């Protein structure tokens, strides 16, 4: 175990080092990309095509309408693509996807969740993967960053009635940030052995004489954006545990870094845009603290896994790839669940009860440490608003964050934001067991492991969906009408309600004139505030999910310990 811990420390240290090196240049570059007044020629062409004046700014309701229209169009298009799959080229002979699954998948990819109720290689051909899913991988990520940038702009604004132009933000996010990064990532992945072809299935005969279907496809190009955009939807059912998606320990390490790099650099972008880099460092430090603590705890739990099989193997190796080992798996699992990516290189369902519980807790924190691209930053800023409110009262001033006062309207929107996800998770889980017909279906068809673990599987599914993570306890068969629909609704509401609240918050913050900083102002860049923010994140989620966790992973895990 000692050697494993050193290995963990070395891997964690490497990740942190690379992220620290990337923090300033990438953060500054992203700030520049969104703040620059100049448009690229290709961008201008695109704006002309869709009939948008890139120099005009939108009020918050207009921004919301644009986000919703854009995403609705994405869902409709993706749904249609799946339903007419047999008519498309390179469909590999696969037929149309059924309604519930097509709905679930469309919502899943447009909401940056990438929950997969299906087995991709058995369900989707190249065209849907390439023209449908991969496109949404870019666009949903760009939407997330756009909303975050709109909120940041609002903090920096003085008496402004607008918060930016969605079409410009989403275009720049795609063209200037995601495409270049994904291109670099794809090349590196191909270098590491990730496949990239249009070959379809190869039938091979194995050494023992059996025949086997080996799938191919444009994997590396899709894998790159799956990771960089914190999407997580695998090309193959086994996701990043599949050797064609993630062949080597170093590609696994690369994927971890790529998942984290944008979410961890966005605080820098935030600091730059509000003209106070210290604010960015504070947010990044809080995120990093969660990451270090959470990955350490999960690693310790898996290394110390109890039960006879883990003890014989030396650790809880069930469901983990030997080429990644415990440490390579837990670090990946933590990165994936803390970033709302949801990609897996090991099966979370097979983790120890408490280790799997950590994956759930990571998501229950609200995907803010560092969270998905964009969504992590705006989530953290909303929680910062709540933290500032309570702390601000305690210093005897109307609470303010970055000079913007937190009053009834701001508080209403922030409260609605933090209410949404827990309500979806708990209601979804409870309804799965409360509606008589559904209950029979869930316990009879979906749950693979009855008892406490079966409950955890359902809880995990709704936590993952409502938080737009997309990872799963794979024991759950989610391709049922109830789960496809309910999880689809949870993903949709879990993505767009918070976005509406965030943009409304942005609108109301942008209108304010900032209050000047004095000795009576609560400083929000110091360790003290960082601690307070950590406390708020933990308390808000711990108080909400404690009973549910007690009934699932805690009851199961503490029973064995």
């Amino acid at each position: 175990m000692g050697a494993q811990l050193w290995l963990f420390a070395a891997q964690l240290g490497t990740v942190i080092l690379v992220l620290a090196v990337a923090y300033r240049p990438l953060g500054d570059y992203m700030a520049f990309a969104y703040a620059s007044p100049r448009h690229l020629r290709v961008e201008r062409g695109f704006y002309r095509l869709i009939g948008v004046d890139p120099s005009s700014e939108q009020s918050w309701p207009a921004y919301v309408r644009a986000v919703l229209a854009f995403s609705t169009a994405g869902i409709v298009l993706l749904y249609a693509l799946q339903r007419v799959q047999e008519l498309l080229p390179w469909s590999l002979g696969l037929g149309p996807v059924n309604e519930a699954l097509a709905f679930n998948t469309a919502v899943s990819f447009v909401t940056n969740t990438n929950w997969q109720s299906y087995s991709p290689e058995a369900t989707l051909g190249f065209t849907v993967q390439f023209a449908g899913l991969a496109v949404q991988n870019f666009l949903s990520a760009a939407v997330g960053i756009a909303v975050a940038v709109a909120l940041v702009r609002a903090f920096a604004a003085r008496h402004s009635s607008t918060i930016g132009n969605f079409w410009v933000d989403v275009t720049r996010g795609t063209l200037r940030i995601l495409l270049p990064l994904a291109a670099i990532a794809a090349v590196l992945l191909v270098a590491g052995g990730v496949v990239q072809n249009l070959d379809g299935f190869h039938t091979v005969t194995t050494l023992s004489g059996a025949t086997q279907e080996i799938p191919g496809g444009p994997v590396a190009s899709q894998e790159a954006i799956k990771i960089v955009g914190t999407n997580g939807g695998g090309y193959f059912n086994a996701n990043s545990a599949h050797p064609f998606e993630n062949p080597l320990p170093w590609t696994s390490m690369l994927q971890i870094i790529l998942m984290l790099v944008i979410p961890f650099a966005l605080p820098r972008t935030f600091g730059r845009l509000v003209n106070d880099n210290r604010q960015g460092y504070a947010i990044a430090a809080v995120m990093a603290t969660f990451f270090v603590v959470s990955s350490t705890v999960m690693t310790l739990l898996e290394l110390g896994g109890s039960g006879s099989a883990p003890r014989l193997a030396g650790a809880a190796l069930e469901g983990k790839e030997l080429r990644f080992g415990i440490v390579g798996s837990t670090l990946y699992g933590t990165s994936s669940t803390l970033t709302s990516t949801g990609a897996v290189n090991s099966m979370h369902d097979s983790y120890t009860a408490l280790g799997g519980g950590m994956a759930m807790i990571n998501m229950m924190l609200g995907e803010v440490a560092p969270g998905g691209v964009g969504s992590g930053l705006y989530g953290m800023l909303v929680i910062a608003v709540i933290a500032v409110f309570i702390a601000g009262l305690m210093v005897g001033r109307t609470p303010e964050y970055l000079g913007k006062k937190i009053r009834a309207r701001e508080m209403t929107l922030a409260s609605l934001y933090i209410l949404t996800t827990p309500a979806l998770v708990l209601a979804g889980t409870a309804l799965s067991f409360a509606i008589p017909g559904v209950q029979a279906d869930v316990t009879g068809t979906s749950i693979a492991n009855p008892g406490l673990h079966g409950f955890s599987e359902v809880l995990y599914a709704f936590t993952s969906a409502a938080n737009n993570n997309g990872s799963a306890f794979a024991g759950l068969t989610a391709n049922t009408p109830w789960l496809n629909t309910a999880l689809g609704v949870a993903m949709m509401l879990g993505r767009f309600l918070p976005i509406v609240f965030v943009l409304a918050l942005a609108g109301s913050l942008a209108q304010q004139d900032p209050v000047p900083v004095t000795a009576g102002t609560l400083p929000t860049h110091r360790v003290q505030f960082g601690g307070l923010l950590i406390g708020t994140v933990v308390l808000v989620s711990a108080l909400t999910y404690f009973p549910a966790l007690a009934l699932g992973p805690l009851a199961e895990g503490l029973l064995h310990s």
Partner: protein
Amino acid sequence: MTSPLITALPTAARKLDPRLMWRNPVMFIVEIGAALTTVIAITEPLLGAPAGAGRPLAPSFTIGIAAWLWITVVFANLAEAVAEGRGKAQAASLRATRTSTPATRVIDYDETADATAERARVVEVSSADLTLGDVVIVVAGQVIPGDGDVVSGIASVDESAITGESAPVIREFGGDRSAVTGGTRVLSDRIVVRITSKPGETFVDRMIRLVEGAARQKTPNEIALNILLASLSIVFVIVVLTINPMAGYAGREVSIPVLIALLVCLIPTTIGALLSAIGIAGMDRLVQRNVLAMSGRAVEAAGDVTTLLLDKTGTITYGNRRATAFLPVGDAEDTELARVARLASLADPTPEGSSIVTLAEEQGQHEPPARGAIVVPFTAQTRMSGVDLADGTQLRKGAASMVSAWVAETGGIAPEQSRHLDEIVTRVSEAGGTPLVVAVRDAGGDARVLGVIQLKDVVKDGLVERFAELRAMGIRTVMITGDNPLTARAIAAEAGVDDFLAEATPEDKLALIRAEQSGGNLVAMTGDGTNDAPALAQADVGVAMNTGTSAAKEAGNMVDLDSDPTKLIDIVRIGKQLLITRGALTTFSIANDVAKYFAIIPAMFAAAFPGLAVLNVMALHSSASAILSAIIFNALVIVALIPLALRGVRYRPVSASRILSRNLLIYGLGGIIAPFIGIKLIDLIVSLIPGF
């Protein structure tokens, strides 16, 4: 504390009316829970206990929970009732002044021809019948029938009914002391008053409504906090509603009273119960300091103030120039200068004159006044004063140029001495003082300059420290003065204010406030004159002096009955304390939840899932005793914190960071730890009850 709690009990019970309760969503949830548990407690023996998890709970358990839930609601009402009770007593004494009094109304008052209304026809009416614009005559011994402005005459008025200050005050026509308040008594002379308030809307009426809390509206921060509390409550309602479907999968449903108990423990009852009491008590603290805020909003704004405008005269300085030093010129002796200065001032009745005498006496000069001396009074032409002694010696003090000229009349000053004199005079002026030159001319006509008396506007004691405190709180002080910039700068430096506005006109003041506000600052100021009214109205916190005009009082959002401009600093402190108290108790309330979870979750599920027994870190006796203990703690903590809610959290003027650290430690960390200890102790007692 005990007796107000008991006297407030009946009021607290009356407040159980759901129509009143629903305004406080957190406590309304508790009341619903209490009612539901009561129904279950009554029907349980008849219908049989519902199929619950684990070992069946004692029948006394449900009754116990129901009882303590009701107690929780009553405790919350008690906090509010006690806070209101303190205002009621004040309101009663104020109401006594409002009884209708006879008034002498002038018919067809003619302002120009008969300002004193000596010849006008009058009619006796009741004060209740007076309306806006009526003119009344009030003579010594009568009670002023309504709020108004003196339009003629001067009188001394006893305002103790509203200010509590027994010394009479002067009210006169014109100037900034023309406002009179209904219910106060004229002690001497006769005044003519124009009524400026409608019946029922007088100053005293507003004051009564204010201290009774009837006019209380939720303040912006209170609304925002209520939203947070409501959404926390909603989250916990969802948490509790979803427990049974989830637990039901394992066949371990929880009984309704247990769920209600969990819900009540989780929702922020502590702050929910005390929130309105904190607000009422905050207003009350202002009233105790003789400040009337027209709205809670103004009190809150006071806590946010970042710029304080203070008038120099009367606020920062004593207002009268006083002698602070004797500065001899050339070879003149200190003692001689002091002696002559004193003799020349003994007959001077002005405060400046007497301050010279005081200073000289402090320096050991006690010569009796010379017999037969002739006093030479100050005139605008000579601009000097002094005495001519019987032996022909003439002593003079006065403006430098005039005294120099007077000396030059009979001889003159040596160039070297003249240069020295100029030097001193300039130095004194630059330091913000006024130089008075002292000269003597003996019987032989030989005149010489002895030196200079430095007169200065003296900064009030302790102000330098208070301004430093304000700076630490993040508040900038700006001194407003009519003085020239040179003098203003010197006094500003001496008092330690951050900035000053010299040669200020009312327009300048208004412009300054607007400039500060456009930079995002919140401005507080005091004022008394009618020409202050626009600035008072523009300022975020405008404190009008009670001695001021009614225009000023209307424009401001607070009135200081003591007319003490430095009280602005106290007002800011009270505003901050109000917010801090709310924030601290909110933090405490939320932090409490951690321990309650550790009490209730194992109690709910440990029988079904033995693994969860490790969560019972407090080693509570049984499920029933754990849950009941958590509920009892939850109720008792409300009562325990009522004194804190009424008194307010201690506030020290230090930086925001340090205040936060301190409060996080006490109310955050304390809020996590305290219930672990409290619930354990209560459990030790509850476990002695049979059946638990």
